[in-house]
């Protein structure tokens, strides 16, 4: 297409696409996001296209691959429009039946429906699934509906209308006022007011003559994948938000810094940028407004610290990702010394919603100090693993038990870890606390980017803390001493405790060192690295004490503190554990009770995994 020159040209294009978009037309939408792809959705999609092509259908049926709708647990997912019948956990072998029975004859295949674990009831329609019912989907609204590789789909549903409105009917100041009025706070985790940040940057850009904006898509928190899903499933929303932001701040060049570990998101983003350029949303004289903006993609190279804004900018400049002290803040002196505004993917994606629908409507959701919605990736020991978008202020209990479906296998909930390696855990007694920036901080966790990992009774909180400390210690860039040495010292102590070599005084040492690292580190990585340790110490000090004083791991996880043995009454001498043991610790012969030699046993757990008779005891 040739670039659009005016609001009128955009409007006629949009109107044509919108009228052609018809949710009452038969259509099959298959999740083509990373999660479902890993479960084989591409084979399902290919087979579906083939079967629909050769089936003798009364009306033609469109087959669309979409971005992630979020219900990863049940993937590969498929939704049949217009009824919105939801089929789950699909295999290519199910496809002919779907085409014949449902698409052709209109019959429901019950075994492919979601079954409510409590009632045993089959749920037919996607909107009726408990997982979706309690969500408020704004940023994720189009995920699962549009084909992320087609700009036409985004525009048909109202995409780029906000950009047109901002560029052609609003002054840059008015755009900033609107963003400020929405109460949007940075969704990268720190929660700084976006409107205020923009205003600071705008003033500095005016003074300096130029500047940059950056989208931080270097989503490094293990267990968090919402940024990936937004970029993958609706890349144009991020691009549109950035163009609006660039206009508001008077900036003409921007970067998206995205993890190289997200190949599909990178592909979809690059494709979307090309489309936006072709349509005239990027480039010179955008929509005839005289405003110019260009957007580039930079790939992260696998360094967690690059999520920190000054390290991220160093990386874009081609150097190693070491942070530098602030101030100066990026808004004053950022990329190549110019005023720079950095926002997270979800913050940028919220901008078209705020401008398009108005700040008032956006601020109508959430709590007095935390407006709008928040996207969480709910993972770990939870039934409905996936991505959920909920209003700020919802309780953790609703999120984990109503939407997340509770804990699998009847196990007891132990803690929710929010905010990844920078965050903390929240125990069962605080499940009813509303989720907003302030409440989470007061509990020793942080909103962070929205990663939420559920731990059950089988997880050891000391091991959990050790896991995160291992992560931050490895990812510490090494520039400042408190983080480089402090995380190492804390990790060494945690490793000793987990190995059964804890000493009295270890807890006090962790508290003291944690405080030092927090207060004295150069950047956010170090300043937050002790959080997982400090918050587990706050709520689960008894577990630490059990490890140190009683030489016991209550959750039976830490290898230095557990032993494996065989229950003679249960063992029937099948030799499976013996054959699988890599350290020759199991002895016995066919038909006779086996025994484990504790001196040889490495406590790898293979024997327990392979035993079909539950004859291996861990204590």
């Amino acid at each position, binding site marked *: 297409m040739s670039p659009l020159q005016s609001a009128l040209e955009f409007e006629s294009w949009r109107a044509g696409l919108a009228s052609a978009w018809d949710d009452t037309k038969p259509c099959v939408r298959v999740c083509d996001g990373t999660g479902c792809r890993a479960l084989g959705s591409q084979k399902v999609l290919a087979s579906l296209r083939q079967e629909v092509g050769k089936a003798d259908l009364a009306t033609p049926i469109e087959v669309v691959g979409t971005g992630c709708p979020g219900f990863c647990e049940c993937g590969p997912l498929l939704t049949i429009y217009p009824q919105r019948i939801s089929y789950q956990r699909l295999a290519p072998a199910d496809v002919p039946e779907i085409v014949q029975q449902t698409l052709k004859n209109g019959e429901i295949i019950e075994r492919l429906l979601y079954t409510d674990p409590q009632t045993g009831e089959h749920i037919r329609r996607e909107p009726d699934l408990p997982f979706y019912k309690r969500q408020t989907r704004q940023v994720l609204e189009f995920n699962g509906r549009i084909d992320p590789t087609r700009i036409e789909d985004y525009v048909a549903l109202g995409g780029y209308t906000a950009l047109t409105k901002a560029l052609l009917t609003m002054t840059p100041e008015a755009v900033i006022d609107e963003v400020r009025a929405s109460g949007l706070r940075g969704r990268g985790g720190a929660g700084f007011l976006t409107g205020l940040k923009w205003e600071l940057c705008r003033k500095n850009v005016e003074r300096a003559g130029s500047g940059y904006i950056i989208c931080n898509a270097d989503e490094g928190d293990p267990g*968090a994948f919402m940024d990936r899903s937004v970029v993958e499933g609706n890349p144009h929303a991020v691009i549109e938000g950035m163009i609006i932001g660039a206009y508001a701040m008077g900036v003409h060049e921007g970067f998206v810094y995205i993890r190289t570990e997200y190949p599909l998101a990178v592909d979809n983003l690059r494709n979307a940028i090309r489309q936006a350029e072709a349509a005239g949303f990027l480039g010179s004289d955008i929509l005839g407004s005289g405003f110019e903006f260009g957007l580039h993609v930079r790939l992260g190279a696998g360094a*967690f610290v690059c999520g920190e804004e000054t390290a991220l900018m160093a990386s874009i400049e081609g150097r190693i*990702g070491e942070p530098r002290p602030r101030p100066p803040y990026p808004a004053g002196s950022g990329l190549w010394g110019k005023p720079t505004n950095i926002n997270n993917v979800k913050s940028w994606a919220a901008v078209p919603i705020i401008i398009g629908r108005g700040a008032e409507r956006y601020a109508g959701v959430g709590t007095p100090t935390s407006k709008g919605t928040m996207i969480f990736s709910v993972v770990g020991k939870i039934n409905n693993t996936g991505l959920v978008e909920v209003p700020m202020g919802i309780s953790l209990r609703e999120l984990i038990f109503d939407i997340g479906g509770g804990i699998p296998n009847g196990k007891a909930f132990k803690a929710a870890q929010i905010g990844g390696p920078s965050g903390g855990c929240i125990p069962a007694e605080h499940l009813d606390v509303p989720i907003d920036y302030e409440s989470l901080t007061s509990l020793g966790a942080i909103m962070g980017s929205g990663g939420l990992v559920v731990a059950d009774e089988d997880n050891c909180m000391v091991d959990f803390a050790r896991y995160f400390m291992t992560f931050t210690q490895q990812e510490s860039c090494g520039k400042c001493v408190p983080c480089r040495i402090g995380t190492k010292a804390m990790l060494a102590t945690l490793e000793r405790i987990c190995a059964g070599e804890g000493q009295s005084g270890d807890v006090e040492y962790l508290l003291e060192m944690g405080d030092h690292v927090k207060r004295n580190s150069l950047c956010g990585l170090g300043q937050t690295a002790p959080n997982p340790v400090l918050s587990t110490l706050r709520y689960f000090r008894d577990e630490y004490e059990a490890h140190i004083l009683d030489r016991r791991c209550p959750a039976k996880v830490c290898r230095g503190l557990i032993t494996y043995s065989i229950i003679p009454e249960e063992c029937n001498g099948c030799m499976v554990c013996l054959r699988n043991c890599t350290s020759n610790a199991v002895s016995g012969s066919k038909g006779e009770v086996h025994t484990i030699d504790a001196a040889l046993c490495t406590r790898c757990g293979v024997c327990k995994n392979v035993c079909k008779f539950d004859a291996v005891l861990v204590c």
Partner: protein
Amino acid sequence: MQISISEINEIINREAAGDGSLIGALEEIQERFRYLPPEALILASERLGVPLSQAYSVATFYNVFSLKPKGKHCLTVCMGTACHVRGSPQVLDRLETKLGIKAGETTPNHLFTLETINCLGACALGPIIVSDGEYSGQMSTRKVDALVKSMMQAEAEA
């Protein structure tokens, strides 16, 4: 893997004509040859006007770069939090035992490289192993055995 100087030059020249990004050029070379041969660092630093020391610091700072050639097959274990609570340490342990190497190493016959990754973001499937780009979810020690066996068998038949 055989490296080709002309291909390396081609990648660097393309990058020089475009964004001129050192990291971008090295990323492409890494993806093409699955490691950064010494020649690549020298050529990139000369062509992009960056000191060799900076090219080397970049190549050793970021996790995606490797200065050592990798094996024919790459097995990557996700060590993300969701995978961790669902048992990825046991999965990695089993792979280390089966292949006789530690994470980050390559078997002496250059067939297998074992690696870990911080998070793939496919958390519903944990623990996850990626073998030559193919995802295998909900791994257990038993499934690891089957996976390694089938890869070794395919290699023996090839």
